């Protein structure tokens, strides 16, 4: 039995030959066990890396260190998405933390039927939508837009951006441009905002966006097209 298990770890791509070997050498229990493992590998969704699988299993078993690793691996990607969706750094920080806590609480519900990132984005989008709908967020957005200067350090992630340009004026112009884009994206309708952020900011494919949002491919394409045109028009007006 140990020999068979050893083989499986190293020759996973030679599943057909392996099936035969197990049939000749092992009993039915070992055969079924190995076959189940192989089937799982065959059905593993694209995007779900082995490392992610291991980490998720460990977290499901209660390993907090594995959760930490998972967070460190995906935090920047998630944070970027949430920031561009919400348009506020502090809100994004708070929301992203909340998302990971939700992940930790519901990790046992993850059945490896999709990529971990897909599941992560799905939870992220739902959490962000709920936050946007909350009255506290809407009130804050109203007051912040009046009170807080855009050049302040807090809430402005572009404050420290250095784009390598030797000219301070150029640097300032870049920062202002980023702020402009941020405001323009944030001002889009929620559905279009989501598409633009997932596609043009995060780089997800149409299929991945469809998996995350649960929308059809056609809806994703049409919403993205409208969102891009709208964003362009808003940016054009501000130049």
């Amino acid at each position: 039995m140990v020999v068979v298990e050893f083989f499986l770890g190293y020759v996973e791509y030679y599943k057909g030959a392996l099936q035969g070997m197990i049939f000749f050498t092992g009993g039915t229990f070992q055969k079924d066990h190995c076959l189940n493992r192989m089937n799982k590998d065959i059905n593993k969704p694209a995007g779900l890396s082995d490392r992610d699988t291991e980490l998720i299993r460990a977290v499901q078993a209660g390993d907090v260190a594995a959760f930490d690793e998972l967070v460190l691996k995906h935090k920047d990607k998630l944070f970027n998405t949430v920031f561009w969706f919400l348009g506020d750094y502090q809100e994004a920080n708070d929301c992203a933390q909340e998302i990971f806590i939700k992940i930790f609480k519901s990790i046992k519900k993850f059945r490896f039927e999709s990529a971990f990132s897909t599941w992560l984005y799905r939870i992220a989008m739902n959490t962000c939508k709920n936050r946007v709908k909350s009255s506290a967020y809407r009130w804050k957005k109203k007051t912040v837009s009046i009170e807080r200067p855009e050049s302040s350090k807090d809430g402005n992630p572009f404050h420290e951006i250095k784009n390598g340009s030797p000219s301070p004026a150029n640097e300032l112009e870049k920062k202002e441009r980023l702020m402009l884009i941020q405001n323009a994206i944030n001002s889009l309708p929620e559905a279009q905002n989501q598409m633009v952020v997932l596609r043009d900011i995060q780089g997800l494919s149409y299929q991945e966006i469809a998996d995350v949002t649960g929308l059809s491919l056609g809806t994703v394409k049409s919403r993205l097209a409208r969102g891009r045109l709208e964003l362009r028009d808003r940016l054009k007006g501000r130049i």
Partner: protein
Amino acid sequence: MECALIQERLSEYIDGTLDADGRAAVENHISTCKTCKEDLASLTEMVEELHAMNPVEAPADFLEKIHERMDSRFSLDRIIRKLFIPFRIKIPLELAAAATITILVFFVFNIQQKEGPTVQILSDSISEKLAEKPTEDRMKPAFEKEAKSVAPVLEAVPTTPSDKKQIRLTRKSKATTAVQPSIQRESTPPTSVLGKAEEAPPVIKDKTIDLALVLKTGPTGDDYRPGIAMEPARLPKKDEKVAKTEIPDSDFFEKNATAKHKTPVADLLPSLENIIRRAQGKVSFVEIDRQTDRLKWIDAKIPAQSYPSFCRELARLATFHTPPPPLSDKDLDTIQVRINFIYPH
């Protein structure tokens, strides 16, 4: 029209996800349409700009903050889970809480209600208690000790000839006066029970009318008669001695007493209750001296119109120490009276 269709496909064209036919249609159109060509250019520029932006990174203490939130939240969650999630704990706990609240509400409600019937219950129990007391305790030959006459509290007491004799016996004299036990009046009680009323201040609305009754107790046996509205005996001082000669002999009572029953203090409360009830009133409070087991006062509410007859009935029972004040306010519906009891020693 064609421009609108082409505009919708520009996004996919930029992403390279159009099929061959779609790509060809867009390219054919933009080769002839300047507007769509400019739109494609601006759109492409914007998308490339978005793709080129640096991602916004999470703060350095991001993981630490997550753990802080998890620790605080999960400890509370753990407690709540322990208390409420397991049904074997949750359900009994909820039942216990519901039962406690019910008991508390019932208890509070009960206390509030008790204040009403308390007096009635109290007076009933007191009546029973007093009735159980041995006769000897109740009957005190107080009149044996009383020696002096008192100023008449009630004047203009109409008397019948049959009463005159008794009254004479109790007429005050400076030398000696025997305090006679109260004798049942056969005639109708005088209306001038309220005779000296002019001296008493009239009752005003919302004030309790204080009435003071001097209780007279006689010896045990049938001789004792309830008090009537006669000249009351003067209240003797504590150390005052009563001459032996002043004490009437027991035969006197046998000869002259018309009532057959005695009225010890134990019977006083039921009698008072009856009087109050007949006046269509209600006892509201009874105060008893625990040490001596004597009535101190009774508070009652009676209709204002029953006040005169109420006073007359009280006068039959005992003697007023001071005349009951009249009611000046005719508009009163109900009045509060307090009957104080004075026990001569």
